[in-house]
């Protein structure tokens, strides 16, 4: 089944109460499957028609505030349209789960994969998990509800899957048994004295105005919650592994232990890179590794430091651009390493923008550049635009 179908199956297994979403390529079939499941009774939930993504997130905030387990999906312009509400959802500490089929933000207009959409939300308080397979998409959505609804977290989570590359690719997916999922993920039970819960027996006004004396402290609590989420992510992933035989971690350090150089990336680029790493090790004897950043928010600082401390060079691949400074994932990695006593040379690589294919040869180039940096002790350029058409642009 496709990544989109896998997501829909997971939402069905999670037995959500409310779905409110607006169609946008390449997310559309997630919502089509869900409305089919609801219409034919496979999923006992309410589908709230929305007139836009802003409407959809408004409905999700409302529904979550009355204690419903809520799901939505979007990407690109739709995610951008939700932007101000994303901060509201996080601020009201609502455990909404959203699938984001990563797609570029206009302009230029395009429907193809890059991470610019989710990058725009990285400071919102939402957790962000990037998956590399359709199976992982299904598993992560189920895990997401458990993490989000935990009292120590109570933050919304976006499960990010590469638009088209995963959403529209079909592969074998094991769909877990409903009973087993129910045992792993019981129904959402908000606490009327703690959560944002609209309850006529305990009336409250959600989201009061806040004077300067308290905003920082409320934000601090959100910050703390994301820190606590790291532990929850590990725990829930471990429990999932016990229950279903699959677990993923906050990061996956693939053949990093003895690597001279490592490539860090998110999403499907990681999947192809693992294949390339194996090939290069076998055919060229290069000691290369791949660091999958699965949890992007919260950023897995300890795991990144641990996996890369011994490496001579670390190429950080971002599938998005941070104009004016470089690229977002690189910035986060560099910040993480700023106090490290021992750290690799960092390469800032931008790849896969606007759906540009990141093929085996491209990944080989990244490893080549990392090895060169390791050898020479310096990087060729401040930012490496992988596959840039130099006949059109550039100095």
């Amino acid at each position, binding site marked *: 089944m496709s990544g989109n179908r896998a997501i829909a199956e997971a939402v069905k297994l999670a037995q959500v109460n409310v779905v409110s979403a607006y169609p946008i390529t390449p997310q559309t079939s997630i919502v089509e499957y869900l409305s089919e499941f609801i219409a034919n009774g496979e999923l006992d939930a309410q589908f709230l028609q929305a007139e836009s993504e802003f409407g959809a997130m408004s409905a999700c905030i409302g529904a979550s505030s009355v204690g419903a387990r809520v799901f939505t999906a979007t990407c690109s312009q739709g995610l951008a349209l939700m932007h101000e509400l994303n901060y509201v959802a996080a601020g009201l500490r609502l455990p909404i789960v959203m699938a984001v089929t990563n797609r570029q933000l206009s*302009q*230029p*207009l395009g429907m193809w994969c890059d991470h610019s959409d989710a990058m725009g939300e990285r400071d919102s308080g939402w957790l962000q998990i990037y998956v590399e397979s359709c199976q992982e998409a299904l598993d992560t959505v189920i895990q997401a509800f458990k993490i989000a609804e935990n009292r120590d977290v109570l933050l919304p989570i976006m499960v990010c899957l590469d638009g088209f590359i995963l959403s529209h690719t079909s592969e074998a997916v094991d769909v877990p048994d409903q009973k087993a999922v129910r045992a792993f993920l019981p129904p959402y039970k908000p606490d009327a004295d703690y959560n944002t819960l609209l309850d006529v027996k305990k009336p409250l006004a959600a989201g009061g105005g806040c004077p300067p004396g308290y905003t920082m402290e409320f934000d601090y609590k959100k910050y703390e919650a994301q820190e606590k989420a790291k532990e929850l992510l590990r725990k829930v992933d471990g429990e999932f592994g016990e229950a279903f035989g699959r677990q993923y971690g906050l990061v996956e350090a693939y053949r990093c232990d003895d690597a001279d150089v490592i490539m860090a990336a998110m999403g499907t680029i990681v999947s192809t890179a693992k294949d390339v790493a194996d090939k290069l090790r076998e055919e060229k004897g290069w000691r290369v590794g791949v660091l999958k950043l699965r949890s992007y928010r919260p950023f897995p600082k300890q795991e990144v430091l641990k996996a890369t401390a011994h490496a001579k060079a670390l190429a950080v691949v971002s599938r998005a651009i941070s104009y004016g400074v470089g690229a977002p994932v690189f910035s986060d990695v560099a910040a993480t390493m700023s106090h490290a006593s021992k750290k690799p040379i960092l390469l800032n690589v931008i790849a896969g923008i606007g759906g540009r294919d990141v093929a085996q040869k491209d990944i080989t180039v990244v490893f080549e550049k990392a090895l060169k940096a390791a050898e020479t002790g310096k990087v060729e350029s401040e930012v490496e635009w992988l596959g840039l058409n130099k*006949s*059109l*642009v*550039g100095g």
Partner: protein
Amino acid sequence: MSKPYWNKENFPITPNIRNPGGSLAFKCGQWRMVKPIIDEKKCTKCGICITFCPDDAIEKTAKGIIEIKYDYCKGCGICANECPAKAIKIVAEVGESCTTEG
């Protein structure tokens, strides 16, 4: 080998479309798998097909005859469906020699 359309000197700053009517150069009629044929004898020249054609692929010529613009007709069949005189027939598109013997 033709010269590339763009180079460093003329690559624009945004993908704006500066040539009006550029879509005319795109002969989407090539996508067609069936085509409409108008029987002039039955045609009453009411123009309903022109109104309904989603692709603006039917026109009334200066002589007042209704003609399909086969460069753009994608073969959806709506014209045949709507024609009150049943003057439009949908036939299989005969491909290039690669789909027929010899």
